[in-house]
């Protein structure tokens, strides 16, 4: 089983449109994991039927019992997150500031502080209208556990993939270069970088590729909106060639992407269009690359 992750560095380059299209083209050969848990959108085009829903608990927050608290302030002294404030004679924890480190209960002389386990989000297993299993999630409002939730979505997707004995896991990653991105790409077999010829797109691609390179994972790139700025497109192509990144395809700046999303479809479903044909070619190239790897 091979794991393919789609990332972009910059948001809005078409990452989810590509991920959904690959899910459509792979059909039942792939389990899909939506790891853009901050802004999970895959379900909007795959119209999945919900099969399973589970709460995901991760992290803690301190709670001070106002009846037990003597107002000594020992907790305030040790908190490095300014998460404890006075309230009347006693103290109170600000849930948004609390990092759940568990230091304050260790110094409370009257054991007035407990650590409460937090619901960080929900994880869903669904069936897309194309028949693939989709594992997705909703991050709890205000939770800082996106990296952990990504790992859990991937673990659950792997379980499903093994059960169904599928060839591929397709992962829609998150934007940026931080923890959720690392959690999305670690242990995958192939990274698909979706970029665009804008100064921002190029800058963000170069940064996120530094992360990919550290993991030593093979990568390919898709240049979306390629005709928007031919000179930057040429620079992106040179960057890809220099770094040994496969050029998987180029798409024009086309309203079709927006039209498809607003019709609840992925671009690969827009029959008879050049974009749909090019997307098929991308998928074929990715499969070729992965199968090549298997040869000695």
């Amino acid at each position, binding site marked *: 089983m091979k794991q393919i992750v789609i990332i972009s560095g910059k948001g809005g380059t078409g990452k989810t449109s590509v991920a959904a299209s690959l899910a459509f083209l792979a059909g039942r050969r792939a389990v899909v994991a939506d790891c853009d848990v901050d802004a999970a959108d895959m379900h909007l085009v795959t119209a999945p039927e919900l099969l399973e829903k589970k709460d995901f608990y991760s992290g803690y927050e301190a709670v001070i019992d106002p009846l037990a608290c003597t107002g000594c302030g020992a907790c305030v002294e040790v908190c490095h997150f300014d998460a404890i404030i006075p309230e009347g004679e006693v103290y109170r924890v600000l849930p948004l500031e609390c990092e759940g480190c568990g230091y304050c209960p260790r110094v409370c002389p009257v054991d007035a502080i407990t650590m409460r386990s937090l619901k960080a989000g929900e994880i869903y297993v669904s069936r897309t209208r194309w028949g693939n299993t989709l594992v997705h999630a909703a991050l709890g409002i205000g939770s800082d556990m996106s990296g952990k939730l990504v790992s859990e979505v991937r673990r659950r997707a792997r379980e499903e993939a093994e059960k169904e004995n599928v060839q591929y896991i397709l992962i829609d990653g998150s934007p940026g*270069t931080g923890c959720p991105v690392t959690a999305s790409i670690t242990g995958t077999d192939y990274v698909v970088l979706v970029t665009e010829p804008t100064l921002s797109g190029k800058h963000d691609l170069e940064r996120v590729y530094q992360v990919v390179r550290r993991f030593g994972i093979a990568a390919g790139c898709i240049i979306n909106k390629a005709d928007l700025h031919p000179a930057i497109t040429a620079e992106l192509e040179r960057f890809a060639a220099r770094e040994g990144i496969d050029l998987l395809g180029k798409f024009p700046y086309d309203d079709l992407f927006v039209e498809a999303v607003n019709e609840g479809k992925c671009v690969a479903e827009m029959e008879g269009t050049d974009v749909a044909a090019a997307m098929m070619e991308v998928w074929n190239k990715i499969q070729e690359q992965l199968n090549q790897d298997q040869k000695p």
Partner: protein
Amino acid sequence: MKVTIASGKGGTGKTTVAVNLAVWMAQEGRRVILTDLDVEEPNSALFLEGKETARRVVYRRIPQWDAARCERSGNCAAVCMYNAIAFTGEEVIVFPELCHGCYACSDLCPSQALPMVDDRIGEIVTRQVSLSGGAGIVHVEGRLDVGREMPTPLIAETVRHAERLVREEDTMLLYDAPPGTSCPMMEAAKGADLVLLVAEPTRFGRHDLSLAIETLRMLGRPFAVVVNKDRPGVTLIDELCADKEVPVVARIPHLTEAARLYAGGALLVDRVPQVREAVASLGHYLQTWEKGGGQR
């Protein structure tokens, strides 16, 4: 006044709005400090030519094992809630990427064998940007080192840095936030007098905007919506905003010409009259908001 420009979805035009609003306000004679808090992928400097005036390395504090002092109690690993410390019986291993800097292991070590030391996470760069006609902007950028996974402490420090640069009370502080709805976005929004949510009229855009609205409601910050890439007849964002009773305060039209200019790093307020008009209406909205003391 402090205004954070945010969005649930990436690529909706946060940076475009932040940069162009900053330029328009400076051209109107306002003192502006524009701060890029998208520290994983900071892009706003690509649109503004400036002279670097200061560069500061940002550190956080993490524990460092002192093998000679250590009495092998294993207390450090036992108190760490983040699994950032492993104790093998012989050795203590610190995993910096898991450490939240709570000091519990260090303070509670019976032999003071885990002193807290500096750990570089990124940089803050300050630039003086000169605009045509003699106006200027102070530009502050937080930039997370590639490979570092926790952006939030750097975001907090970049905000503090920008606020220390304020000399005149009427300074406009504009913050370009990271995308998403989790901790980094909240850190960028929590101190704002007003948050502008930039949304694009697609189903992805609508869904992610609704998550961002929930997040800001929980934070208790006032906010308003700016529609970017606005298309005649597409009312996805307007319907959501009417339903959630959120004001739509400006609309930037979808123009291929604007996308091309953006790609090459141009300032749209100076080049595209329709964009200038939209940004001016947003600027006027902020001026009115300020005069009304935050009352709409």
